[in-house]
């Protein structure tokens, strides 16, 4: 029996190695919290009424972010973002609370926009039909944006609260940005592979580049979702039992 168990253990290790050969190293941080997925070049945001010159968003308007995943990590490391037959896309939304500006440094200005009530969904679609990052169709929404990012099976979905974008024009004249938000998993076919199928909360953040954009887009995000936290479930107990712990 011991030999069978040993052989099974070895097979399991080998299987895990085969399933996740490429993603593990770049996903592993050593802290216990790792990246869940990431996207790079193919990530774009658009929003009606957005003033590109002043980086000002109108309160009440909705931002939409579309992206094609470039990296999957555990527990989804078996999914291949480069599969020629499948495409993994992410779509985010959020409602603007308007933009505030603040000075910094000697002559810099920061433009901060908070988006609330957002949603996210990650799709597995066939075939790969999202536009290339170098050929984004202008002025979304259009025939393929966001439609070709929204097709397929929902792998993960949920809510996004307090998505904050920060664009900075530095005292040295450089312009760049970042985004940060918190997401909660609420569903999707892959949600059962997480520590909790619903309610897991995680960090999403990354670059929010605003230079050299295709017409009609307000930013090029390059970002990632970290794996959601796994809270320890509460247990019912009695005062007596708690007292016993400290005696």
């Amino acid at each position, binding site marked *: 029996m011991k030999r069978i168990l040993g052989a099974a253990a070895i097979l399991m290790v080998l299987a895990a190695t085969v399933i996740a050969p490429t993603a593990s190293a770049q996903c592993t941080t050593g802290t216990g919290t790792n990246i869940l997925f990431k996207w790079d070049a193919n990530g774009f945001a658009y929003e009606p009424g957005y003033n590109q010159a002043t980086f000002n968003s109108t309160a009440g308007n909705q931002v939409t972010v579309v992206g094609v995943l470039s990296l999957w990590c555990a527990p989804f490391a078996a999914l291949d973002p480069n599969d020629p037959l499948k495409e993994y896309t992410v779509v985010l939304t959020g409602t603007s609370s308007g933009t505030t500006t603040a000075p910094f440094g000697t002559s810099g200005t920061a433009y*901060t926009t908070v988006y609330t009530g957002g949603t996210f969904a990650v799709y597995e679609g066939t075939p790969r039909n999202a536009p290339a990052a170098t050929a984004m169709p202008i002025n979304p929404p259009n025939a393929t944006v966001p439609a070709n990012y929204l097709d397929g099976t929902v792998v993960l979905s949920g809510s996004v609260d307090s998505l904050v974008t*920060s664009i900075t024009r530095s005292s040295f004249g450089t312009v760049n940005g*970042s985004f940060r938000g918190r997401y909660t998993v609420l569903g999707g076919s892959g949600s059962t592979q997480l520590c909790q199928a619903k309610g897991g909360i995680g960090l999403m953040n990354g*670059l929010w580049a605003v230079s050299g954009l295709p017409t009609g887009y307000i930013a090029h995000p390059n970002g*990632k979702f*970290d794996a959601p936290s796994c809270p320890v479930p509460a247990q019912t107990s009695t005062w007596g039992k708690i007292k016993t712990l400290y005696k």
Partner: protein
Amino acid sequence: MKRRAWLLLLAAVAFAAPAYAQTQTLFGFTGFDYVQSAAPGGLKVNRAAVPNFLAVTDDYHAVGFITSFSPIVVGPDMVANEYTFHLYDATVATSTLVGDFLEVSFQDNARVRAFEDSRSTGTAAVYGINPPNATSPSTFEDGSLILGADVDQLVLIYDYSTSQGNFLGNANLDEGSLLGQIPPGLQAGWIMSGLAGRPNATVPDGYVNQLSGELVIPTATNSRHGSWGSLKRLYR
């Protein structure tokens, strides 16, 4: 001569882009940054994250993994190999903390290098804690050098009120085995940018921020219509 013409044509096709495409990404990356400060004896020691984490003369480092390559470079095999990078020689020139905003400029001539290391015969990159340590940056700069760039005008901004920031620098590619695939006219003018701040449970002890970024060139060369005759005339 014909071969050269074909190569030029292929390069033009590879970099061809519709008029509305304004950027071309070379690679995307993820990783972490850390800071080394001057210590007695001229040594540089790791300094944990504190407000104004980059003081004048501090050395800024970033290590991590390349998560995707643009199709403009041929050869990277993400299955067989691990691709890593190290940004170093980024010395703080000015550092201003006003309110919640930190603004830092760096001296020119920082350097970023990207490496290819076999997953089967090489050494896997490991962050560890409190870098520099036994594995970082050493395991992020082993293997073969595929691309390197001089990084100038690097600027980092961080807003402590929203726990986010960004960095951006101009990168001129000048070394590595893949350099020859980048047309000479497109080796300068790249922009390296990224950053993803803390609090962030993924950040190992001794590192400061998580990174999510890329190396992009702002204006891709557009394709032009031409005849074989006009192409041949260029080489007569």
